[in-house]
């Protein structure tokens, strides 16, 4: 997650890309996954949780027994039963079907926000590291200003400015999230660009663009992947939080945070309404965190040495 930067930045610096054959690489990767799973069993749990979620999102129309937005006043506020696994809400909608469809929204949120934040962060971090000097200083102080905001507060302000809605919520969270990537990638590029093999590439006359794409960027991919996975969970929680306070996803869209928000007045009498969407959120976030830890171990050569 965002607070755990210290650990991820010192993960693996890959050796320069080698001209191994692709099948050899595949086999190597599978072997490493097997070894890592042996001492990080929770990683398997995380992979299982996330895989389930992706399948649920893809096959939502087949899994959900009802239309997630179909009103049915006769069956309002029914407790969980065989007919309605997670009960029904005040408009008689099936909570289970809504939770199932919610997986699509939360997965989309995670992917879109993290992709925007990581690309903006990467662009700024790389520019700062490669240009150095005044530009570096200016870009990093600019980053500091964003860091002076408590994360959810800046997202709230931006979201309120853009107006409620899922797109503005995603944009608002991305605006607060790029700083971590900018710092991390700047650090990564700074350490890589002084390596001997980069000097070597320059000596044989490689262009700046080629050095960046072929020799520097591949070294940033590993740590960024770990960071992205660990961040995705926090991103989903933040967007859900925005939806909960009425900014992000608007009802009747079946987003988990918005569903908890809608049902929150019913916690004492119809507990199932806000409880199950919240559980789904936990499922996803815990899954993402475990997968993130797993990836960190997978890419950490020190751990590979331990049991390899």
């Amino acid at each position: 997650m965002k607070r755990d930067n210290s650990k991820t930045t010192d993960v693996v610096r890959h050796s320069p890309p080698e001209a191994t054959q692709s099948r050899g690489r595949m086999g190597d990767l599978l072997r490493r996954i097997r070894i890592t799973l042996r001492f990080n069993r929770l990683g398997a749990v995380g992979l299982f949780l996330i895989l389930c979620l992706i399948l649920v999102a893809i096959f939502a129309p087949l899994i959900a027994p009802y239309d997630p937005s179909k009103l049915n006043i006769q069956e309002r506020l029914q407790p969980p039963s065989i007919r309605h696994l997670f009960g029904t809400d005040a408009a008689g909608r099936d909570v289970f079907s809504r939770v199932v469809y919610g997986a699509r929204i939360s997965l989309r949120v995670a992917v879109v926000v993290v992709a925007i934040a990581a690309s903006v962060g990467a662009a700024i971090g790389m520019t700062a590291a490669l240009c150095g000097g005044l530009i570096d200083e200016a870009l990093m102080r600019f980053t500091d200003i964003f860091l002076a905001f408590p994360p959810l507060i800046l997202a709230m302000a931006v979201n309120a400015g853009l107006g409620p809605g899922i797109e503005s919520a995603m944009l608002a969270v991305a605006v607060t999230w790029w700083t971590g990537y900018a710092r991390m990638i700047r650090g990564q590029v700074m350490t890589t660009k002084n390596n001997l093999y980069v000097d070597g590439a320059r000596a044989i006359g490689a262009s700046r663009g080629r050095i960046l794409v072929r020799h520097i960027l591949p070294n940033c991919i590993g740590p960024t992947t770990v960071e992205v996975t660990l961040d995705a969970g926090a991103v989903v929680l933040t967007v859900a939080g925005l939806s909960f306070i009425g900014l992000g996803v608007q009802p009747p869209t079946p987003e988990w945070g918005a569903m908890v928000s809608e049902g929150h007045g019913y916690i004492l009498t119809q507990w199932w309404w806000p409880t199950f969407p919240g559980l789904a959120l936990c499922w996803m976030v815990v899954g993402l965190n475990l997968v993130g830890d797993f990836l960190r171990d997978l890419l950490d050569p020190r751990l590979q040495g331990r049991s390899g």
Partner: protein
Amino acid sequence: MILRYVLRRCIFLVFVIVGVTGLLFLITYSIPADPARVAAGPGATPKQVENLRQKLGLDRPAYVQYLTYMKNLFRGDLGKSTRTKKPVIEELKSYLPASLELMVAAMLINVLIAVPFGVLSAVKPGHLADSVSRLFAALGMGLPLFWVALLAQFIFYGKLHVLPFGGRLSTSLLPPAHFTGSFIIDALLAGDWLLFKDALVHLILPATVMALPEIAVTSRLMRSSMLEVLGQDYIRTARSKGLPERLVVGKHALRNAVLVPLTMVGMQVGWILGNTLLVETVFSWGGLGFLAFNAIYKLDFPVIMGVALVMCFVFVILNLLVDILYAYIDPRILY
């Protein structure tokens, strides 16, 4: 030495504040909604809207507007709430103490639980405390806090009937005479034990929920930091000269180990500030988060920006305090 450092940090603070207000101004300036139209009300003619636009200075260039905004800010004028028509600064003043009370309580609970847990699990790996804190760390950061708050209400109010549902006081009681704004301190100052007890009971649940994710982080940091310190030479020296383990751990190791989690406190304040938005909403805790929540529903923009600004200030200033405290605890740090 430390004075010079504080001075330097204060100068940096000015830059941060200019940056933060600039950013907030930019958001206000670029909102799709037309503030003049909103302020004029739905029945206004185009001419009336235009007049109001001139009166509010909204027709002038952006930088002039920013300078006016800053000038007003320094005079403590943050505009008027479009919902209650009261000055935003008054609203903030009446809601801030409640949030601070909740935050301080959450931080206290965090330290009181996380530090002993971290130390215990470092001193006795595999002990029950170690397993519990491991589990806690895995879950603590993955839980949606607003949902945990709801579950806490369901369990402790709905099922066990041991703690109140929400609010800062029972409805039958009147708040104490306003002095600090914190009901607990004010009740204590007034010598009203009943009120003090009631306010304290209302504080337990929201503060504990808010502390949960922080406990997860702090106890893990405390554990790893303690393990590292316990491996140091001076700990071996302390042991070999025959000091009882209690003193070795409690005095020599703890003081050094506590530095690592302390560096995180500043960051944690940021998370806690964000979380007040969610937790206060669930518990109807009359603080800044609750104010913001109500403002969001009416799209009361001046109030939302005011809350963001105040929380930012609190965050920046508390971070400064943590840094100074850090220098005070660890004399090796020179600035």
